[in-house]
């Protein structure tokens, strides 16, 4: 991490659902153009944490963030910050593929139109670029007008990644992006993640520890709403510093 530029960071960040403190003073830094995996048992707070990074939790009533979440050193919860702009810069891909009931083209173009791009040539160029980057172009280029819902699960997920990329975010958050997919589709998504880190900073939540080991440069282990250990992935999986981490990744608890 020493030589890597920091793209995002949280400082002593806590998150509350009402009175319940779901996240406990989490301080973490995310290196630019690197993949960071968040691992931990169900309910450890890793998805809640991920959602604080583009203010997806804002819509949950009676929830609050205390502390600091920074994107390029600027607090994204500051009063003068536009939440729409935050979400454009920090995109998200969900566990279950969620294509819009539109054509493949319009699905990917949706975010661009929302952002005011109307020029047909520009739209076409950016849709193609995104689909290519998501390794889906070859499979769909002849049926861009067909419904996105007709694609296979793995294709739908790559479509969602293309849609997230179309608005050219700087950070991509992925919440178990491959957990609903078969091994071949999973492999494609994993290869994609590794390719995409040249362009984005990627933060991925995964239940699949082998996946974290395969795709990420850094791994952070969460337990009971706390960050337990964060280190280079190879260190976490060969010689973690803390026994709690070792017990979790070797399946001794969790």
């Amino acid at each position: 991490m020493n030589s890597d530029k920091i793209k995002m960071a949280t400082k002593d960040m806590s998150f509350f659902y009402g009175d319940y403190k779901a996240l406990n003073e989490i301080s973490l830094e995310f290196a630019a153009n690197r993949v960071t995996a968040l691992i931990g048992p169900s309910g450890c707070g890793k998805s809640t944490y991920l959602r604080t990074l583009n203010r997806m939790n804002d819509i949950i009533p009676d929830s609050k963030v205390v502390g600091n979440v920074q994107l390029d050193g600027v607090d994204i919860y500051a009063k003068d910050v536009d939440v729409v702009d935050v979400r454009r810069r920090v995109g998200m891909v969900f566990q279950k593929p969620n294509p819009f009931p539109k054509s493949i083209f319009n699905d990917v173009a949706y975010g661009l139109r929302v952002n005011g791009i109307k020029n047909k040539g520009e739209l076409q160029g950016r849709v193609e670029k995104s689909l290519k980057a998501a390794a889906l172009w070859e499979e769909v280029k002849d049926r861009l007008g067909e419904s996105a819902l007709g694609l296979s699960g793995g294709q739908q997920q790559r479509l969602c990644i293309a849609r997230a990329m179309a608005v050219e975010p700087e950070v991509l958050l992925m919440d178990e992006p491959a957990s609903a997919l078969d091994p071949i589709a999973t492999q494609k998504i994993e290869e994609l993640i590794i390719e995409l880190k040249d362009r984005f900073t990627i933060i991925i939540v995964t239940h699949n520890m082998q996946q974290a080991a395969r795709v990420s440069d850094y791994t952070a282990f969460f337990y009971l709403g706390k960050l337990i250990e964060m280190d280079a992935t190879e260190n976490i999986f060969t010689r973690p510093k803390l026994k709690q981490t070792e017990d979790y990744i070797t399946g001794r608890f969790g």
Partner: protein
Amino acid sequence: MIAHLRLEIEKLKKQTLSLSAIVEKSLWMAMRTVLEKDSVTARKVIESDSVIDKMEVEIEEECLKILALHQPVAVDLRFIVATLKMNNDLERIGDLAVNIAERGLYLAEMESCVLPFDFTEMAEKVQAMLKKSLDSLVNLDAKLAREVAAADDEIDDLHRKNYELTRQLIETQAVNAVCSIHGLSISRYLERIADLADNISEDVIYMVDGEIVRHKSQFETLAKNSDEK
């Protein structure tokens, strides 16, 4: 799944411990053949090597199976990797015990052969070293494992002395050169066994602490020298 991995690892641990026990006994018997000119025991050591070889292959297969089926990480991964390496070292010690027994057999048959040096001290030290490294494995005791390296230097010194003595004796034609060479070979085998015991202890340290101590001083010297440049 995970409970299953635990069972496999326990089984592997038991196999490795049985192999260590057999190898330790083999070395002890080999040294008896030299110290007591006992050809019966020498033959037993030579014959029992195939048992060690068979166990080595079984342990390796077990390790490969666990790696392929369970993809272990952290302490479990270190355990498998260290076991693979120790397994190799234990088999090599078994071979060296056979080499010693073969020399012992020759000496037992050559009544007139008088060894130029007494192996009692060196044999005791090497066996103690091997025992310590294997105890550190049994108890996963990295502290005990770290004590083994120090003893290795003593063995190296003893071997150097034996070499010097043999050279002098051959030069002055004070003893039968063939007997001396057999003696020196035994010294060399013991010195190799000490090195392998040292390797085992290094693997125990890696297994327990995740630290690779091998060649550490060498790397530190290199780093220091490049810093100074």
